């Protein structure tokens, strides 16, 4: 029995659809993932002129990531802390710090594994490099479950 292959035109259509599908898949999986390479949703939970805090869910765990504005360094000697309304405190940490351990070079993160509180205060010491000072940051945060 003779087998029928798709015509060249039909093959192009199939190929194009396949290409679009593959590209869509690639785009979907390339979304910013924080640390673990898994695409996740993220939510801005606090922001100031010096730092921005975003909540992400990575492998089912909520993680808060703190990003410094351009030209601002986050003090690693005084690690940022999330003070929650139920009295718990969650410290931020990062493996990436300057050689003298004074500033974070990577965005510090805090895992909220067991946290149930929905409100809290984010404290950080942020140091604008332009003027060589540190400022204390205190921001209200709302944490969705």
């Amino acid at each position, binding site marked *: 029995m003779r087998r029928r292959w798709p015509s060249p035109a039909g093959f192009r259509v199939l190929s194009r659809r396949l290409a679009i599908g593959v590209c869509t898949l690639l*785009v979907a999986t*390339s*979304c*910013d993932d924080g640390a673990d390479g898994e695409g996740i*949703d*993220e*939510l*801005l*939970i606090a*922001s*100031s*002129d*010096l730092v*921005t805090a975003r909540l992400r*869910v990575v492998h089912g765990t*909520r993680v808060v990531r703190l*990003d410094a*504005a*351009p*030209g*601002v360094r986050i*003090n690693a*000697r*005084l690690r940022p*802390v999330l*003070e929650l309304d139920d009295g718990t*405190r969650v410290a931020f940490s990062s493996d990436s710090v300057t050689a*003298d351990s*004074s*500033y974070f070079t990577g965005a510090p993160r805090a895992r909220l594994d067991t946290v149930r509180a*929905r409100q809290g205060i984010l*404290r950080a*010491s942020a*140091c*604008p*490099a*332009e*003027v*060589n*000072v*540190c*400022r*204390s*940051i*205190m*921001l*209200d945060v*709302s944490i*969705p*479950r």
Partner: protein
Amino acid sequence: MRQSDLASIGHSFPARRCRYTRSMSGNFPASSRLALGAPTRHATARGRAMPDDVTGQGTLVRRGATTTNGGSSHALIISAPLRTAVGTAVALSSARPASTLAGRISVAMSPQSDADPGRLAPAWSNKSWLNTPGPIALESLRGRVVLLNFWVFTCYNCTNTLPSLRALDAEYRSKGLSLIGIHTPEFPPYAGEHDRGNVAKALLKYKITYPIAQDNDNASWKLYGVQYWPSFVLIDKQGRIRHEGYGEFHVGDRTHIEWERRIKSLLAE
């Protein structure tokens, strides 16, 4: 985390950030790229100094005064139309964060000379002191020039400045300068900054021998309207605030030289 749950507590959803858009949109909302000096929730919101150079080598200004540059005071000459345009900024200078454009303009334009007497320095009432047998009252320092340094040992910019302060102390203590460190914590007590033992260790580590007051309730910080670590206040022999500034500096740099010039000037009065 469902979108409907988040919306119910007032969250808005940013666009899903993917790599192909991230490089174009950046990590921060446009507002976060604005000036660094917008007040935070607890800020005292009273900017009054400005960086005196682009390298950020600290600052040295008089209260609402002319900026100083390279050891000589000068007023910013500005055209009349521009002066009008920034008039509002000048009027609001006392409440304008120092590092905003308006803050820079307002400080730069404020006319004040070295001869300005300044306001009377408020008396601090710190109870816990180190490197001294007992509390030191401002009143007891009348007749001496006093340099206050607001700092905390967890602040890198503060500890970087300590060698410079040690040098000033070594050179001018016997000539009438009293350097007083006001150790003001940034975080609540759990961070360890309030602990007297930790402060004592820092004094040993950085070889500080001048008196240090623990300002654990931030009372002196608020009294002097300080916003940044490190900050400095220079008080003359009559107990008046003559110069204020903030920011790290080092032995021999322009800001150090300028502070030294100010100290010598007040000692000579």
